[in-house]
């Protein structure tokens, strides 16, 4: 019987320290929730040793400049001391992200969990909606 090895389905946020990190694909388009997802994911990767790839997307809902997003991603990585592969995805963000995750054998896609209105209602973004409905890879929305 193995001891100290997690054998059940791995939970994203409660992983045993001796389990090898997962291969994570974080999609970021510059919205506030995607920035929070970046910070949360990099924080976790520092503890778990996740193999992190950050995909910078063109989110039609924001006018964020991809180069500025990349600078932001790099500064978060540097600050927390995590290395990650940074990629730029052109074209339709949701389908490009799903295709990359499936083609390159990622364990999980990570995305922002939606914007919150002044009322407190959560509104899911269009990229998250597409990815949730179409991805064969597990998806985590960061709240």
């Amino acid at each position, binding site marked *: 019987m193995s001891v100290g090895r997690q054998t059940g389905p791995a939970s994203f946020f409660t992983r045993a320290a001796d389990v090898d990190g997962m291969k994570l694909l974080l999609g970021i388009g510059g919205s506030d929730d995607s920035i929070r997802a970046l910070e949360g994911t990099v924080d976790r990767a520092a503890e778990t040793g996740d193999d992190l790839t950050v995909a910078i997307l063109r989110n039609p809902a924001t006018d964020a400049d991809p180069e500025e997003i990349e600078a932001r991603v790099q500064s978060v990585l540097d600050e927390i001391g995590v290395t990650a592969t940074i990629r730029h995805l052109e074209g339709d963000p949701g389908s490009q992200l799903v295709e990359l995750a499936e083609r390159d054998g990622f364990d999980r896609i990570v995305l922002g969990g939606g914007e919150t209105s*002044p*009322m407190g*209602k959560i509104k899911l973004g269009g990229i998250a909606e597409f990815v949730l409905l179409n991805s064969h890879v597990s998806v985590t929305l960061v709240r």
Partner: protein
Amino acid sequence: MTTDRGYPDDPAGPFPTPPTTAEDREGRSITVRRYDPDRDREALEAMYDTFDPADRAQGIPPTGEDRIADWLDSITGDGTVNVVACHGDDIAGHATLVPDSDDTMVAAELAIFVLQAYQGAGIGTHLIETLLGAGEAAGVERVWLTVERWNEPAISLYEKVGFRASDTESFEHEMTIRLH
């Protein structure tokens, strides 16, 4: 998330201003009046504390006393419009207009909650019409809301009052109304 939202060209209404009293379909006398923090805050917290989780919508109302208190602070704060539906001393429902953060009191988001025991008796329509009357009087020009697209009873209620669909492409069905 407040840009590019389409509103009907013509104003709806007029709507009644609070207080309004009407008998609901169960024969109960229901008064909708302005929310008074000193008088109503405790009862409103209690209402949300007992709220059925199945009736939550897009994350609200939140759960837990502290989160409910924080949420009520923000949706009853400066610039908001709030009414409560009362049955005697009991609060049966609550409706609120929260102004868009990047705007003054010109555009506001609407939410309405009716306690389970009071649902299906016409109180929602009574509450929302009186809230819109209070909003109109406070100078609110446009009101928007989102509703889960499978929630047909809620969508019908909003349509009956004068809301029109403005975005049906997303997970959430967005509806708008013009008051002025």
